[in-house]
């Protein structure tokens, strides 16, 4: 059973490494979107700094959102998803493997590059660890919740924007707490509360979201 998990994880990582151009894409998208903002406003250091938490979090959220397709869409289109659902292994486990692969390929790189973007946005150096930590706790939740959304929309042609409609409202609590943590940290206050909240949401969605995703897959894949 653990084999089924690791084999699927490895397959997904390998597929991503094969399509190398695709590997870096969410990252580049993240960087690009963050740098659009200074171009669109008068980039005074204060304004940038005030916008930074919002811009970084919203961009991370959008980058994850856009990469969600990667989770199930192709498997659905080429019939591999049927094969996964006909597997004697528990579907929840397979879902978890796919979500983990997704986070390793999108969320984690965003976390790693965020310090550079923070410098771009004029964020004071001592706030940067908070940015990293909030993204580290938040991005897995984005993948987990996103998985539910994709599994519901995978059968819909061109469901891209439908997906964002379903998923974005669910992302809002994470966005608020994540961005707020950065904001508060920049003012020199404690961010324990925000971090506990993010950690709690992570634990909750880690236990519930894969089940919901598996159920959703069984429903939508019955074409």
């Amino acid at each position, binding site marked *: 059973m653990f*084999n089924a998990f690791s084999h699927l994880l490895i397959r997904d990582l390998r597929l991503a490494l094969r399509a190398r151009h695709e590997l870096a894409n969410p990252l580049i998208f993240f960087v690009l979107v963050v740098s659009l903002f200074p171009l669109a406003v008068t980039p005074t250091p204060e304004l940038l700094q005030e916008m930074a938490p919002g811009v970084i979090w919203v961009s991370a959220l959008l980058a994850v959102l856009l990469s969600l397709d990667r989770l199930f869409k192709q498997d659905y289109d080429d*019939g591999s998803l*049927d*094969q996964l659902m*006909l597997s*004697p*292994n528990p579907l929840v486990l397979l879902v978890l493997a796919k979500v983990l692969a997704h986070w390793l390929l999108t969320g984690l790189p965003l976390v790693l590059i965020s310090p550079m973007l923070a410098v771009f946005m004029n964020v004071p150096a001592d706030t940067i660890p908070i940015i990293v930590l909030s993204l580290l706790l938040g991005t897995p939740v984005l993948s987990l919740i996103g998985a539910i959304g994709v599994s519901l929309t995978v059968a819909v042609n061109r469901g891209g924007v439908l997906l964002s409609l379903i998923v974005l409202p669910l992302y809002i609590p994470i966005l608020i707490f994540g961005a707020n943590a950065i904001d508060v940290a920049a003012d020199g206050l404690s961010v324990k509360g925000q971090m506990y909240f993010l950690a709690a949401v992570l634990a909750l969605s880690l236990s519930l979201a894969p089940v919901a995703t598996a159920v959703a897959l069984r429903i939508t894949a019955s074409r």
Partner: protein
Amino acid sequence: MTMAHNMMLSTEKLVCVRDDRLLFRDLDIELGEAEVLQIEGANGSGKTSLLRILCGLRQADEGRVLWQGEDIHRSRDEYYSAMVYIGHLPCIKGDLTTEENIRSLLDTRSRSAAAKEIDEALNKVGLGGYEDVPSKALSSGQRRRILLAFLLLADASLWILDEPLTALDVRGVALLEQMIVDHRDAGGSVIFTTHHGMQLPCEMRSVSLGVVPRADLDMDDADV
């Protein structure tokens, strides 16, 4: 229906309705060990829908599918360990090589295979030498042949095949026919659909799905 065989797959009063059209009603199928069953029917008669119901991928509008006497949604594990389904779709990842594709298909069935076994299977289906070619560089028929190799290695007792002859050339067709016969001789069973007559040198039953005309939409009995 010979009761000499052990019963493998059976259905009870299956009903399928799509888009207000009754495709079939009260369908009872029984399939024993070492039996081959062809689902016949014109375009749009519901063959694909039926096979997906038999797999448990689609919910029947009424009735049940039983594996060795038990509802497949209850005995999912045993059923899925014993069955392979190959549908219209390729199930092939263009970025993986032929061998990797086979391996990841086998993984879904928790089967692993030695490199030698895979080589043999590939040779058998005419893909010898293509082990390390990314599948996107294969023609449509070559891709279907990967699935035949998977079928050989999957070690399943029931094969459910939807239009397996698609894209295969004459030699491919002969190969598949032989595979089915061998599988049957080894005690396995097969359900398949095809529009292009297969010449199977073995006993074979068939079930026909009739087209219920569009106008004739009295679905009251099928209490959907």
